[in-house]
């Protein structure tokens, strides 16, 4: 994106998984810019994925999904093999931000979700809340880490490292409205080519009020380990019910205590 990056505007990623080739340039660029050491190297024997998951050291993670049932269009077209560069979704209604007790998780001037490292005290409430398993605790700092959408680069007028490095433009960065437009065009093109399974995830407000980092998927969200709209609930949905049940129990408990402790006439 050649346009200048201005505070006050909404920015995000559009990750088009239909053209991801699984090269992991995004993972490398992210680690290099953000000075992430990465986890201990390991062999997961799971497709080409040896990263495993998003965590405090992996802020981009290319998922390889090869457990998809064969759906060959014609003979010679093998079974589907899906790749997706996963990242923090920078949700409009962010579960992590909702529960954070310290105010460490904020929405920046670029409308992204950012964890202030000097404010975070490592309580891990955001880890329990994030429905995408994005956030993890860095043992060395004792704070929660995740994708910053390259907050420092944005402040310097640069696009995030992963988008810059992506060789197929599967990852594009830009003003949210422009990305959404581009995604609609791409989806229409795929549908017109008969790729009926292509769908956008997080483009509209059905999951967490809309995602600043949204996706074009080649299967249903669950296949990629993403909650569908029916399962995308904010943690606070359980506040009223939880407290109400506790209140009823408290009233019954006090009543039981009164019955047991009340003054009695000696028999």
């Amino acid at each position, binding site marked *: 994106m050649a346009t200048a990056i201005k505070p006050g505007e909404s920015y995000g990623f559009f990750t088009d998984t239909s053209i991801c080739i699984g090269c992991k340039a995004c993972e490398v660029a992210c680690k290099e810019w953000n000075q992430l050491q990465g986890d201990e190297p390991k062999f997961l024997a799971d497709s080409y994925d040896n990263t495993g998951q998003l965590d405090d050291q992996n802020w981009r993670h290319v998922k390889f999904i090869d457990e998809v049932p064969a759906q060959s269009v014609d003979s010679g077209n093998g079974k589907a093999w899906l790749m997706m560069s996963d990242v923090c979704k920078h949700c409009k209604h962010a579960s992590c931000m909702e529960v954070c*007790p310290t105010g460490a998780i904020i929405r920046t001037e670029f409308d992204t979700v950012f964890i202030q490292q000097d404010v975070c005290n*490592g309580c891990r409430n955001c880890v329990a809340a*994030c429905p995408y398993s994005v956030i993890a605790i860095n043992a060395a700092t*004792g704070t929660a880490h995740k994708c910053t959408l390259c907050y420092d680069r944005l402040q310097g007028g640069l696009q995030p490292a992963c988008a810059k490095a992506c060789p197929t433009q599967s990852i594009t960065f830009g003003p949210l409205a422009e990305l959404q437009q581009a995604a609609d065009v791409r989806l229409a093109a795929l549908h017109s080519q008969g790729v009926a399974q292509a769908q956008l995830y997080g483009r509209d407000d059905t999951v967490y009020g809309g995602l600043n980092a949204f996706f074009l998927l080649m299967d249903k969200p669950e296949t990629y380990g993403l909650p569908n709209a029916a399962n995308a609930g904010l943690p606070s949905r359980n506040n009223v019910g939880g407290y109400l049940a506790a209140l009823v129990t408290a009233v019954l408990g006090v009543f039981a*205590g009164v019955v*047991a402790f009340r003054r009695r006439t000696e028999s």
Partner: protein
Amino acid sequence: MYLAAEHFVRAPQWTWYILGYFFFAGLCGGCYALATLLRLVGDPRDEPAARLGFYASFAALIFCPILLTADLGASWSKFWHMLIDVTPGDTGLSFKYWSPMSVGAWALFILGLFVTVSALEAYWLDRRKSAQPLGGVAGRAFNIVGGVLALFFASYTGVLLSVSNQPVWSDTWMLGALFLASGLSGSAALMALLTRYRPDSVFTLDRILEAEAYFSILELVVLVLFFITIIAAGTAGRTLPMFLLWLIALAGIAASLVAARGHLRLLPGGRSAVIARATTNVLAVAIPVLVGVLALRAAVIFSAQ
């Protein structure tokens, strides 16, 4: 379509420190609430047992901030960020009524003051061998406010688990209720246990055991509701590996109910006989109940992780 809630969330690794905290939070809140009730609706002869409750509440309180701070790991020195938002340019008190962890941090802080004052009062009264609690109506009001806070404190930890996107925890509304009922039951067990170290509180022992039985019934009902809700959500299978812990929790409830049967049958008899009978039973009730309180929390905490 999926009947069950689907979860792709990572576990927060709230383990042993948090288990300990949940245990002591239940006892701290429960003991304060029971002590307040004894003072308000009980006989003047229940006052020694009430003081016992205030002491027990204070003892349990001490562990709470220590365990919570230790749980923060390398960030332990930033524990006070729970109360004060240090965001540059936006510094101030941090309070989010919709985040149970935020509310709970404030509850611990404020209840801590109430518990400490009440324990000091009990100590002061014991030293002066005074039977009458301090402060008259104001003193009672203080206890009532503290008691309400205590009931909140004993229950919010369960709500905190539910206000997440974790399997089991976020699939039910019953965790706050469950922790409260078991916290009250555990507190009654603890107070019953402690009466042996304070002869003048033995008068209240059979009442504490009676309350203990009621709380155990309450806990059993809530436990059934808890299982119904997670079965409906389709995540009950995740708690199956915890069945030994659930059994221990159930054994605590059973011990309390079995003892209550024998105990209540004896009530019409001579008072000394009742007390003698109850005294021999206290260990057999209190220990399984307290172990059950711990096991119940462990079962809940480790079901999601």
